[in-house]
């Protein structure tokens, strides 16, 4: 961390009058006292040498010690003291406040301890967080793991959010002795309470970081939230207590630091819960030694790789050494997501590390968030930048649950605002995240295409045996129907069919494989280019298409053959589906005989009228009497006659179907009634009641077609497809 609660306004007196009045009214108030350093004003540590940092921190500690000594005997409580900035947070009564006011040698001013400038309202909109929320993505359903100093789960900003807890903190007696701060005082604790905030200086850190990533202001009565305000939290406490001044330097002892072995154990716990919790990212706002290149020899790398392989990003603070060409470990691990800090005006923060291999920037300067004790604080550091990215990760994973770490990182890098390190020696330009822009990218990520495939049998002959033969060859093709699922339109640019019997067909003429025809339907036009057989066919999501694979002497598709169709799309994606040739279906059973519609009684009337001619469209007399018959239908109900055919045992055929080229057959209700045939086509469409009769006229040819003994069979076809016949003999 870089700094903590910062007064937002200057006061002309050490204690504002309003604060004094409030103390009188309420008895006690929480205040932040700004210490006056003996030799100089406070300088950001990034601008100091290592020795200068040590001196300034000693000055801070000395001023604090003197100021607190002045409060001896007066009611006060130290809420928090800081190593790197000249502030001390106190709860004081009126007398103690008056003493602070009188201690002008050590106290520069006193302000009320409240969040004067809540800065998440600035940084979250800056990175597009509120716009992502308005699109319905706030991390709901996602868990972020905070590997840190533990979290105050009861803080209103985090209430109800901590769903998983663990602690890895060790007691060691060797070099750099440490003591566990797990609540159960052992080296490991799992379950509720295990991830609680430790109780040492610096243990506010995890609570602050968690609030930036996933705090929700709705329950806290504040008008701002963390980046993924809907996300849940896994708290993994990995810090231990170190008592040695040497180990803690330049911090004062005791301090909290994390053993790498404990951090790895914490990360492994996250990995172990990958199937139980929907974890998008692990936040690690911690770091150690700096590296000017990636540090893939770091012990963290295998577990970070494991996490990445299951879609969990490890987001790590780049460190606060103000380096322009290095980041700290483990942020330097190439498979981690390293995060440097920017200001709210998109400049690189003075303290932030940066390097060409830095993954991202995010706001990390003066970020207000939750603080232990139910309070709020503003702090600066790459620790504050990393959880902006972790929260963004949760938002993006909600929108694109199957997106990989690489895909989300690429989206954040492609859409981020470029920030160039303008500090002395700075050269790199890296993207400051814009989660709303990245959201647009990942949410639009195409659904991977998939195919389903059905073998239809040898049912069409659309393509030939040669590799460019887009035409029939006299042998039925293997015909398949494929259906595309792609979440949108895809353009098919290539098809290949492979058979388990060894054959390959495709739409690439260069390969010399046999041709594969493609059509929208079984009988639709082939869509292959007629010269190259290539395809370039857009298909909507859910669209089906037919493919035709030429057979070779009708033996290439025996039952049991496995056929795999692979479609390649214009965006480079591909999809395959497999089906098996089944045995030819058994011949369909013959349709049940059409129920007899009844009977047709036929009577030959002799050569009684001349109503039709000899040609097949001659609905008129030709000078020769027609063979005339009367038919009576008994069908159990009316029928509509749509066709008549008369067969003579002498070989003649008359009918009302012009296409057949048989002689015309006239129909009338009575011998002398008008012909009922269509005058253009001779067709019939005549309703006849049950028991009704009609007369038919069959033209003779040279008056010899109806000799005695001739058998005449009249068949009437009806509109329902049924038919009935009757027979008469020429007397």
């Amino acid at each position, binding site marked *: 961390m870089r700094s903590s609660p910062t007064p937002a306004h200057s006061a002309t007196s050490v204690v504002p009058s309003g604060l004094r009045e409030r103390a009188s009214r309420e008895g006690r108030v929480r205040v932040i006292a700004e210490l006056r350093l003996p030799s100089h004003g406070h300088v950001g540590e990034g601008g100091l040498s290592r020795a200068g940092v040590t001196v300034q921190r000693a000055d801070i500690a000395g001023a604090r010690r003197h100021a607190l000594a002045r409060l001896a005997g007066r009611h006060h409580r130290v809420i928090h003291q800081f190593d790197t900035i000249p502030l001390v947070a106190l709860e004081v009564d009126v007398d103690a406040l008056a003493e602070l006011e009188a201690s002008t040698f050590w106290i520069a001013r006193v302000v009320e301890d409240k969040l004067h400038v809540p800065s998440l309202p600035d940084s979250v909109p800056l990175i597009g967080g509120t716009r992502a929320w308005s699109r319905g993505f706030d991390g709901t359903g996602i868990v972020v793991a905070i590997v840190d100093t533990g979290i105050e789960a009861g803080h209103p900003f985090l209430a109800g959010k901590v769903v998983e807890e663990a602690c890895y903190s060790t007691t060691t007696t060797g*070099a750099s002795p440490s003591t566990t701060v797990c609540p159960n005082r052992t080296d490991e604790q799992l379950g509720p309470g295990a991830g609680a905030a430790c109780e040492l200086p610096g243990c506010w850190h995890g609570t602050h970081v968690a609030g930036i990533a996933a705090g929700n202001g709705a329950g806290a009565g504040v008008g701002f939230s963390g980046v993924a305000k809907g996300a849940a939290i896994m708290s993994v406490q990995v810090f231990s207590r170190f008592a040695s001044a040497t180990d803690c330097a330049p911090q004062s002892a005791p301090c909290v630091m994390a053993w790498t072995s404990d951090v790895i154990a914490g990360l492994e716990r996250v990995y172990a819960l990958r199937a139980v919790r929907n974890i998008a990212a692990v936040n690690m706002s911690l770091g150690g030694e700096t590296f000017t290149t990636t540090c893939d020899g770091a012990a963290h790398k295998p577990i970070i790789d494991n996490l990445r392989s299951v879609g969990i990003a490890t987001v790590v603070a780049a460190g606060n050494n103000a380096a322009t060409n290095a980041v700290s470990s483990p942020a330097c691990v190439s498979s981690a997501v390293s995060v440097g800090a920017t200001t709210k005006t998109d400049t690189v923060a003075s303290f932030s590390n940066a390097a060409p291999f830095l993954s991202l920037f995010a706001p990390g300067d003066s970020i207000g968030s939750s603080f232990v004790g139910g309070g709020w604080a503003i702090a600066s550091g790459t620790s504050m930048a990393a959880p902006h990215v972790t929260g963004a990760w949760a938002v993006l994973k909600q929108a694109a649950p199957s997106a990989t770490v690489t895909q989300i990182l690429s989206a954040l890098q492609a859409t981020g605002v470029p920030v160039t390190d303008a500090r002395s020696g700075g050269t790199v330009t890296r993207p400051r995240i814009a989660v709303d822009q990245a959201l647009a990218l990942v949410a639009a990520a195409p659904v991977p295409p998939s195919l389903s495939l059905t073998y239809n049998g040898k049912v069409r002959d659309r393509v030939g045996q040669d590799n460019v033969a887009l035409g029939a060859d006299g042998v039925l093709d293997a015909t398949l129907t494929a259906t595309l699922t792609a979440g949108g339109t895809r353009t098919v640019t290539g098809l290949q069919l492979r058979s388990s019997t060894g054959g390959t067909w495709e739409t690439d003429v260069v390969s010399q494989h046999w041709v594969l025809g493609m059509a929208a339907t079984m009988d639709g036009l082939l869509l292959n280019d007629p010269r190259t057989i290539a395809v370039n066919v857009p298909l909507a999501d859910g669209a089906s298409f037919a493919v035709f694979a030429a057979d070779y002497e009708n033996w290439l598709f025996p039952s049991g053959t496995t056929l795999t169709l692979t479609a390649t799309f214009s965006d480079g994606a591909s999809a395959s589906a497999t089906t098996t040739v089944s045995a030819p279906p058994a011949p369909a059973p013959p349709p049940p005989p059409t129920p007899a519609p009844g009977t047709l009684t036929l009577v030959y009337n002799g050569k009684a009228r001349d109503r039709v001619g000899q040609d097949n469209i001659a609905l008129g007399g030709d000078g020769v009497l027609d063979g005339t018959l009367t038919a009576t239908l008994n069908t159990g109900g009316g029928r509509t006659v749509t066709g008549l055919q008369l067969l003579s045992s002498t070989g003649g055929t008359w009918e009302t179907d012009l296409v057949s080229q048989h002689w015309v057959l006239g129909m009338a209700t009575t011998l002398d009634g008008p012909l009922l045939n269509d005058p253009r086509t001779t067709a019939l469409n005549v309703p006849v009641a049950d028991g009704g009769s009609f007369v038919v006229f069959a033209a003779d040819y040279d008056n010899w077609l109806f000799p005695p003994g001739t058998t005449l069979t009249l068949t009437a076809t009806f509109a329902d497809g049924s038919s009935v016949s009757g027979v008469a003999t020429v007397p």
Partner: protein
Amino acid sequence: MLSARTLSLLAVLLLPAVAAMCHAAEAPVIDPALPSLIGEGRARVLVDLRVGDARGDVGQAIAHAQDAVVSRLPQSHATVVRRYASVPLLALEIDATALRALGAMTDVVVRVRPDTTTRPQ
């Protein structure tokens, strides 16, 4: 009964084969800072394990390697700090004797390095 001379001859004949088996892997890399860090006392280390081509049960292969290291460490010279299920590492607190023992475990130890610390940023 084999004579001392026969035993010596056997040893001479078998040594190259045994050595080839034991030294098929490279010697562990011991971080040069460790001896001074340990000094006369102890220090925490991370041991990178050699688990071979563990295409089957990776967790089991890691556990076997951890067991192999722990079983061969001299008692009272080392304490296991952490075992891991999914990464080939073992965290120990060791003294100089244990460090020497680790340096001889060419078949299961790849590297021994200090267990470093990190701070909140």
